[in-house]
């Protein structure tokens, strides 16, 4: 039960009769009591006549998924199963991060009828956004007192990673296609596969002329090659404590998601099989054996629920995890952070096991704050900051050199540039036939 502003006004209006008729103290008290009784009687009457907020059937219609940054419409159907017209306010209690804004709406539902309440949701955080309850406040016909009840009406919506880096996809796919049909002069390496024969045009490498075919066709033929296909790509995302750090107002983990989504979107058309694993001390998410369009949708679905865990990454378990996914030679992409040498010993100690069997790329986000700070040396504090930034950059360089020495590849870039940089590295590896 609650009261409305109108009831407050009604009580306050009691001043008028008290002042008009109450020059004698006794009479004034009587008028006051009378007015209060009148207000209470009217309020009680209103409460009795108000429709019950419990006699309401609630149905929801929600889209299952939404990309972060996009808006969806949540529909709530309220059916009045009672005998009286329900007038009141409905609050659809979404989590704040669902971005519902003003979630209260005024409704009037005659008996046996149904109304739809629509709400525009613009979630601003990744993950599962929930709603559990609907609170209904039913006002009486006089608008003085209300009945209020909270109804259970659960619903949820999955907010997927935004995949902003998909804008880089068309250009990368174009470059991937350009690899097709190149002659061996441009594409060298043991992994390239013979594709077809075509007529020689000026500019082709004479070394790729197939003399046997030339003899048969009475025309100069050259062999063409295409990049190898059906290779395995294993993306391993570090969800340990370092992935929680915010760089350029984006957690490392989200940048890793962007990069792995772009890589998967690229590797799919290139004919490679992509498996994804999110891991710290146990598996937080796994996408295995998905192909084509299903791959990306399963990946974003899995990623939506993954949050950084504040525990140390267990690198010792990584080789076994990779082995469980594939026993073939694969491109293993480790999306982690390259920090000081002390923090990277775990990674460095298991890299030889991985590089023995697989091609390994370690991708890490660098902080643009470091490079900015290293350039500014106007004041004493800035000099010390620059020294600290240079120290950090030197540490990263040292660890990167150590990783390269162990036979792995390193990709480091600021958050916005890491996904395309990783995609470029993938294309370069593919062109070199090193997959």
């Amino acid at each position, binding site marked *: 039960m609650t*009261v409305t502003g109108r009831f407050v006004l009604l009580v306050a209006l009691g001043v008028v009769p008290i002042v008009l008729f*109450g020059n004698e103290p006794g009479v004034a008290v009587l008028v006051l009591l009378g007015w209060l009784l009148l207000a209470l009687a009217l309020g009680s009457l209103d409460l009795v006549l108000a429709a019950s907020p419990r006699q309401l059937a609630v149905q929801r219609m929600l889209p299952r998924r939404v990309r972060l940054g996009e808006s969806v419409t949540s529909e709530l159907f309220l059916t009045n*199963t009672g005998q009286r017209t329900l007038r009141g306010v409905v609050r659809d209690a979404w989590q704040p991060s669902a971005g519902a*804004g003003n979630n209260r*709406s005024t409704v009037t539902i005659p008996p*046996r009828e149904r109304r*739809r309440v629509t709400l525009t949701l613009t979630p601003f955080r990744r993950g599962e956004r929930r709603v559990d309850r609907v609170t209904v406040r039913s006002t009486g016909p006089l608008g003085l007192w209300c009945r209020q009840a909270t109804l259970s009406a659960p619903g949820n919506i999955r907010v997927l990673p935004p995949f902003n880096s998909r804008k880089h996809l068309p250009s990368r796919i174009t470059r991937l296609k350009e690899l097709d049909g190149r002659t061996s002069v441009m594409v060298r390496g043991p992994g390239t596969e013979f594709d077809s024969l075509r007529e020689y045009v000026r500019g082709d490498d004479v070394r790729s002329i197939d003399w046997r075919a030339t003899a048969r066709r009475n025309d100069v033929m050259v062999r063409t090659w295409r990049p190898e296909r059906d290779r395995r790509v294993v993306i391993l995302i570090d969800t340990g404590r370092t992935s929680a750090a915010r760089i350029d107002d984006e957690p490392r983990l989200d940048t890793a998601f962007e990069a792995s989504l772009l890589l998967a979107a690229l590797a799919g058309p290139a004919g490679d099989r992509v498996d994804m694993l999110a891991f710290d001390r146990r598996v937080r998410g796994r996408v295995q054996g998905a192909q084509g369009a299903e791959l990306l949708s399963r990946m974003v679905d899995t990623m939506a629920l993954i949050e950084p865990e504040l525990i140390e990454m267990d690198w010792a378990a990584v080789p076994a995890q990779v082995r469980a996914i594939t026993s073939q030679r694969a491109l293993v992409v480790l999306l982690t952070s390259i920090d000081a040498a002390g923090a990277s010993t775990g990674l460095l100690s298991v890299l030889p096991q991985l590089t023995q069997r697989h091609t390994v790329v370690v991708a890490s986000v660098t902080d643009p704050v470091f490079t900015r700070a290293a350039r500014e040396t106007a004041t*004493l504090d800035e000099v*010390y900051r620059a020294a*600290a930034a240079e120290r950090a950059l030197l540490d990263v360089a040292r660890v990167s050199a150590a990783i390269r020495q162990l036979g792995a590849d390193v990709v480091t870039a600021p958050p916005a540039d890491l996904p395309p940089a990783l995609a470029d590295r993938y294309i370069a590896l593919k062109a070199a036939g090193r997959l």
Partner: protein
Amino acid sequence: MTAPTVTSGSPVRLSTPASAPPPANAPATTPTLRAAGKRSLFWILAVVGGLLVAVLATVFAAGTGAGGRPLAADNAAPAGGRALAEVLRQQGVTVTVTDTLEETRAAASAAPDATLFTTDPDGLLTAERYGDLADIVPNTVLVDPDFLALQALAPGVGFGGESSSDELTATCALPAARAAQTLSPGGRTLGTGGLEIGDDLGSLPGAAGVTACFPSGDDRFSVVQLTSGSAEGDADDSAALTLVADATLFSNEKIATYGNAALALGLLGATDDVIWYLPTLGDVAVTGPPSLGELTPGWVTPVLVLLVLTTLTAALWRGRRFGALVPENLPVTVKGSETMEGRARLYSRSNARLRALDTLRIATVARLARQVGLARSATLDEVLVAVAASTGRPLDQVRSVLVGADPTTDRDLIALTDRLRELERATVHATAPGTTASTPASIPPKPASTGRMEP
């Protein structure tokens, strides 16, 4: 932030056929009034029980409290006078309790021969009222008279201070005093320095004589009786005013000690009626301008009460929660550059100038080596020579900037950092593709250590 919209016109049959039963009500999480009452029944009972106990305790404890006016006939506290009044009633004396002079007059007209017992510890009576008091009944017992009372009723009697004697004995002819023999020692006394004891009292109009009892020194007495009119037998127009200096003599606490009770009963029990008059605020004459309470109209207090109630209602209106709060798990927010800032503050706090500068130098040397076309594995000396050659500066100067100079003050540190940056800029400028002409031709970027070049 668009406001939610409500669309009408989609009736029930939108998803269910008309013959189908209406959809089931959503389960409510708010408890019904009955359920809420059942759940909080214990607390309701506990609060009601507690209030009941408190009320009962107050009611039963009221009679034993120390409150009430001193010497009031219904006050059972130590300072009260209920013991005396009750004993008088048991002896068949009618005790009439009055609060104002008007009531006293009315009581006196009903019983003209009554004895008036009065005391005014709060000083509520004025001199005129004391004058009126003397004429109401023939016998008046005034306990603990104040200055105004003495001025109005017994001008010759003054104050005698606290009694210092160990015992108070009657030593007078007053029958009641003789019956009492002694009084509890201590307490106030009255001074009779202005009167002739035992003589006619010329100064008092119609005064016949003064009897003073219970002396505690020269001219200091605890009880003084002034009589007027014909002293010999004719009781009709004789009047007696008895002044008892100390009020505690007749209190419940002390009435039973010494001869206090005998004195009291002797003074008050002589007649069939006693008017027990303790002045109240009703005796205070209303004078001066009307008070604020009289000037305010009658509706002011009710309006104030109404405003308070309106505020409470408004609080209920605004404060009632529209359903429970929805919890939200917030993510951890750690800035990635936290460690760098911390390290910078550590350098700064420990004045690690050389260490900071060396870090900058190492990074700069690595960049310079790349800039002049040397491998990453080139030695420091090779880099120094190459940089000196490409910028055309003396080797010593380059070595001082990149290796040698030791910053001893903060100013040195900033200056050296600036020179480091300047050297780097000069090298970039010297080796930039457009400025090859300015580079001395004698120094080609020769591969100094071919064996260690990276592929």
